[in-house]
Structure formats: structure tokens, C-alpha cells
């Protein structure tokens, strides 16, 4: 078993559920689209270990969601029936050789019904900060004893998944603010608009631009300008709900997708952001203050990200023209109704 232990190269795992959940949220990966690196790994695992079912599983608050999977008909299941929830708590390779003979799982619906799990091997996905965000697992529909070599092979594939998650996070994250990069934000919002269209959900796009940011840089220097950007990002993160999508599009421009809520909520969120940004204090830099102008565009049937961004940009321009430090709705959007 040494090969397995030696490759488990990060700090001791911490089972602190709130921290674990935050670590998963920081990856911004749950509900993302299929991506080649993870698809390739599950294909390789399936072939190499001759497994009918394989998944990269991320254990979210109340469900396990599959980033990539083979041999399953669903992309998530409730967490309370998930074998992977046991695996992340075990903090080591988790093995069930015959679920029907294991009191913990014999009556589990995933054993009694589809996908009829009999044997399970799950390797926790332990990130460098020590938090376990999910597993790489293989499932068999017959009883099976797992060899040391099979466990070592899956452990190494799990380490590859962790590396891919790390690289993905760097590629998709703005280094200064830790918000999504422009491209990652667009990809996530496109997926959200697709979903909203399917379920006729409401939503809105907020485009936020810090006022007179160039003069802050010119007067106080770029380090202070960076501090203002980081503080703004902190406020945006604090105000938004978990499922809203926020990114830094570039320079002093931020974008937010307020998902699954009427335009009036998007407008109210924008107003709250504006007020809190205007209230930012910088004790080390007397005289420094900042404000933001925000344009809001409501989801409309058939509207693309580009169309919504254009509409929000026009509203933002109007906010700037009217004196800055204010929120404006896009023209073709319905005026917000506070009683929506």
C-alpha cells in the first residue's frame, strides 16, 4: 500500500464541512459544462480498470454532482445516498466489495435499483489546502475484491484529476481578485442563459464600472488601485448569492449574472453593490473614496450573452452620463417592479 500513501502528497485532509464546501465553491466547477481533461480521465479509468461505471464526483451541500461520468444515466444524486459521501469522510481509498452484504449500503436505493452498485472503489480528491472536494470512483455491478495495484492506479488517476482542477482554476480565475476571468464568466453565463431558456427562469446581467478609476491609479499608485479592485471584489462576493456568477471582465469592469430571480432583484442587488462600494473606507489612504456605475439588463427570450452585455453597457453608459454612482436599467428591459 506504500505506493498509494506516497502519492497522497498533500497536507492531512480536514473534515470541516463548511470549509470543505467553501473549498469546493472556490473551484467554481459544480454545474460547469463537460471538459475534455475530465472526460479523457474517466474514459481511461473505465478502460484501464475494466469498470462499467466511473465518475469524477464533486460532493456539494445536498447532492453529489458528476463532473464527468460513464455508465450512469443521471448527472447527480442526493448526497444522503452517495457512496462518495462515505469516501470523502474516510479520507483514504474507500472500498466496498459487496454492497449487498454491507449493512451501511444493503438497503441503499443505488444498490437496490439503478445503477445496482455491488462493488465500489472511491479515491478522495484532496486539494492542496487539505480539503476533500469529491472522489474519482469506479463501480461494478458484481462483487469484487480490489487489488493493491488497482487502488494505486485509481489513486494516480485521482491525483491527475486534482491537478486538472488546479490548472482549470488558474486558467479560469482572475489572479488579482480571484473572480472568474472574462472567458470563464462568459462560458458560465452562456450555460445559465441556456438553462434559464429551458426552464423559463428570469435573470439579469449587471455591468459594473468603478468611477474615475484612472485618477485613483494616477493619484495613489497602482498598488492602491489594485487594493480598490480587491475590496470591490470582496463586496461583490459578500452581496451575491452562491449561484450568482461574478467575473472581472478587465480593468475596473466587473460583471454579475443574477440567476433565477426577476429583474427587480437584479436591480436591487446592483443598488446594494453601489451603496456598499460608495461606503468603502481606506484608513491607510486618507481622502481616497470610490464609487461605481452599474447597468442592468434583464434576460429576454432568445437573448445572447453579447446582446445582454450590450444592453447593460448602454445602461452603464447612461449611468455615467447622468453623473455616475448610480444604477440604470437597460432600455428594452421592463422597469423593475419592487413587488415582483
Amino acid at each position, binding site marked *: 500500500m506504500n*505506493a498509494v500513501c*506516497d*502519492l497522497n*502528497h498533500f497536507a492531512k485532509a480536514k473534515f470541516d464541512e463548511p470549509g470543505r464546501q467553501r473549498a469546493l465553491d472556490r473551484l467554481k466547477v459544480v454545474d460547469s459544462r463537460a471538459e*475534455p*481533461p475530465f472526460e*479523457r*480521465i474517466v474514459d*481511461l479509468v473505465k478502460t*484501464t480498470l475494466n469498470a462499467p461505471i466511473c465518475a469524477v464526483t464533486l460532493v456539494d451541500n445536498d447532492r453529489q454532482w458528476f463532473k464527468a461520468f460513464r455508465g450512469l444515466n443521471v448527472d447527480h444524486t442526493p448526497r444522503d445516498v452517495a457512496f462518495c459521501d462515505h469516501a470523502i469522510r474516510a479520507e483514504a481509498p474507500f472500498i466496498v466489495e459487496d454492497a449487498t452484504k454491507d449493512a451501511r449500503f444493503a438497503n441503499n436505493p443505488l444498490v437496490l435499483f439503478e445503477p445496482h452498485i455491488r462493488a465500489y472503489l472511491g479515491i478522495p480528491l484532496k486539494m492542496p489546502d487539505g480539503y476533500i472536494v469529491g472522489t474519482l470512483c469506479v463501480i461494478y455491478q458484481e462483487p469484487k475484491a480490489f*487489488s493493491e*495495484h*488497482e487502488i*494505486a*492506479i485509481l*489513486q*494516480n*488517476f485521482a*491525483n*491527475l484529476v486534482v*491537478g*486538472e482542477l*488546479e*490548472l*482549470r482554476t*488558474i*486558467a479560469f480565475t482572475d*489572479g488579482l481578485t480571484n473572480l472568474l476571468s472574462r472567458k470563464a464568466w462568459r462560458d458560465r453565463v452562456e450555460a445559465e442563459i441556456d438553462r434559464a431558456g429551458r426552464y423559463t427562469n428570469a435573470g439579469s446581467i449587471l455591468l459594473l464600472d468603478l468611477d474615475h478609476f484612472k485618477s485613483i491609479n494616477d493619484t495613489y499608485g497602482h498598488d492602491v488601485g489594485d487594493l480598490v479592485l480587491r475590496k470591490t471584489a470582496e463586496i461583490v462576493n459578500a452581496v451575491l448569492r452562491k449561484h450568482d456568477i461574478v467575473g472581472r471582465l478587465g480593468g475596473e469592469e466587473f460583471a454579475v449574472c443574477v440567476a433565477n430571480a426577476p429583474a427587480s432583484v437584479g436591480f436591487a442587488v446592483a443598488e446594494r453593490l453601489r451603496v456598499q462600494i460608495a461606503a468603502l473606507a481606506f484608513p491607510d489612504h486618507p481622502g481616497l473614496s470610490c464609487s461605481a456605475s452599474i447597468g442592468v439588463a434583464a434576460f429576454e427570450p432568445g437573448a445572447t450573452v453579447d446582446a445582454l452585455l450590450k444592453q447593460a453597457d448602454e445602461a452603464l453608459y447612461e449611468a455615467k452620463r447622468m453623473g455616475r454612482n448610480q444604477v440604470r436599467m437597460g432600455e428594452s428591459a421592463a422597469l423593475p417592479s419592487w413587488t415582483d
Partner: protein
Amino acid sequence: MNTAHELVEQAVGDHRHHNVPPRIREIVDRHHQTLLGLANALIAAGRDEDEVVQIIQKASESFSIKLRTETESLSS
């Protein structure tokens, strides 16, 4: 009989020496270690050398492409 190190070299070369930004270097080093570990585990499981090289190549391909893209975007 080639070693795991030689098989990984054959499959992907040694990209640890490429000019990668510091924030990525650590990830690249761990990735390389993992490939070595995977090759060792596959050899121990009795897989033949061609199969090991193929698996390592496939396992590393997406990472290498993303790494190249990311390295270019960070250095531009």
C-alpha cells in the same frame, strides 16, 4: 525493460524544464510525479510497455495543451 521514468519520458518528454510561471510550476511538478506513479502502478499491475506509454500519453494530453495555453496567456 524500461523504467517508469523512461516510459514517461517517451510518452510526454520532460516539460518540467519549460519556462512555466511560478504559480504553475508546482502543479506541473506534481503532475509529472503523478505520471511516474501511474506508470509504476501500471507496470506493477503487469501492463506492457506500449500500453503504459499510450495511457500516459492520453492521460497527459489535455493537461499539456491547457498548460501551453495558460503559459502563453500568462506570459503575454
